[in-house]
């Protein structure tokens, strides 16, 4: 079974095998400053696309017993600017626009007229910490019906009183656990937690769950994605 070969020919054989590996060097493109940002953007885009395929509209996020809920005072308050953007709660309304039949301003009472759902779900922060919170509110899907939203549109965008902004894919917006949340732990939202209305989305990471909502639009085109996304975070970040 052994075959003889002279030294020179063995060198050629070895070299040919070594040259076969040269495509591996293509990974070095990630080290080239000019290519790095576009490559990573493409990688993250691929990851987001794969994420959206994994999303199942009927699959519920785990819910927890009351005993597992993190105490209210240990539920972190994360903001990018101020804890309290001093929303005028008396005169607050949610401005609705975009691909809807009934655009206009909606009061908190109109949101609260919809069936109320309460859930103990896990809130996962992109930083790595997690807490289990108690959230109540109306299903975003019910509200979309109320305003006559075109649910074949691709996105929902929101603006917030503190200048924060976010966007959400329609499939996630229609998920039964996606709430327009006005109560946490059985009490109206405190100012730090986004009074009077915030998003609770147990199928998304924390930064998608915007607080202090002021504006909601239905659209097919995103001019901007979200405060953190526009600085390089994942656009989709579904859990």
């Amino acid at each position, binding site marked *: 079974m*052994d075959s*003889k070969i002279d030294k020179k020919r*063995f060198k050629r054989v070895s070299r040919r095998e070594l040259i076969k*590996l040269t495509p591996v060097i293509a990974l070095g493109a990630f080290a080239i400053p000019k290519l790095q940002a576009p490559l990573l953007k493409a990688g993250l885009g*691929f990851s987001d696309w794969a994420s959206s395929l994994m999303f199942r509209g009927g699959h519920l996020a785990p819910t927890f017993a009351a005993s597992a809920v993190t105490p209210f005072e240990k539920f972190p308050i994360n903001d990018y600017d101020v804890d309290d953007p001093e929303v005028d709660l008396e005169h607050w309304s949610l401005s609705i626009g975009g691909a809807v039949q009934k655009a206009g301003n909606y009061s908190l009472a109109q949101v609260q007229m919809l069936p109320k759902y309460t859930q103990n779900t896990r809130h996962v922060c992109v930083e*790595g910490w997690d807490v289990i919170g108690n959230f109540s509110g109306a299903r975003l899907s019910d509200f979309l019906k109320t305003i006559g939203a075109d649910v074949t549109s691709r996105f929902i965008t929101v603006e917030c009183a503190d200048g924060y902004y976010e966007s959400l894919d329609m499939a996630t917006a229609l998920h039964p656990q996606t709430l327009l949340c006005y109560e946490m732990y059985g009490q109206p939202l405190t100012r730090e937690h986004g009074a009077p209305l915030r998003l609770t989305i147990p199928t998304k990471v924390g930064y998608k769950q915007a607080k202090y909502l002021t504006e909601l639009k239905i659209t097919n085109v995103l001019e901007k994605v979200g405060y953190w996304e526009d600085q390089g*975070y994942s656009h989709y970040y579904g859990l």
Partner: protein
Amino acid sequence: MATRVLEIENPKDGEITEAVYEHPFIVRACHWVNAVALFVMVGSGLQIFRAFPSFGAKIPQKDLINWPKSLAIGGWLGGALQWHLTFMWIYIASGLIYIGYQLFSGNYKQVLFVPRDVAGVWPMVRHYFFLGPKPPAKEAYNSLQKHAYTSAIVLGVLSVLTGIAIWKPVQFSWLAWLMGGFHYARLWHFIVMWAMLAFVFGHLVMVVLHGWNNFVSMLTGWKKDPEYRAE
């Protein structure tokens, strides 16, 4: 699978050196791609960890370690996530291609630690600690090597599974549940990383100790002058 063996003849003095084809192309390619991917995954993972360097509660937060930024990749959390979520696909692809190839080609017999290898582990450990003679080599890898490589493959699979449990704790809630929930999946992911790094450390030490011909074999596939007689 029959091993390819060559006898290299030096035309000057007629001296014969044996060479064995130890590492097929797919194995070598996956090895190097995986080495790069693992490097990026660990570096960016440690930067991600810096955002919340704890496995306890957020309030009050007790940091485990303050990992230096200079030993991390990505510069900030968002940057590190871009690296991590890009290279995880490369890491997974190289792992799947490697495992698939090994299974279908039958080449897995070279690395897979099986029950009959158990007896060979202790003599090899004794040898490495200068407590015993070197056990005779019969094949490419000795029992202890097989144990190390098989463990590394298992750790690779675990690193992906624990990672998925953190990345998708809702869609793969059963996976997160198996690990004790999102919170503990994060801890397992961290532990698996250190276990993998322990393997890499041992692996690199052995590469240095076993010399040039051994190192070159992972580049060209051919190992000159092997310690064993190929059959």
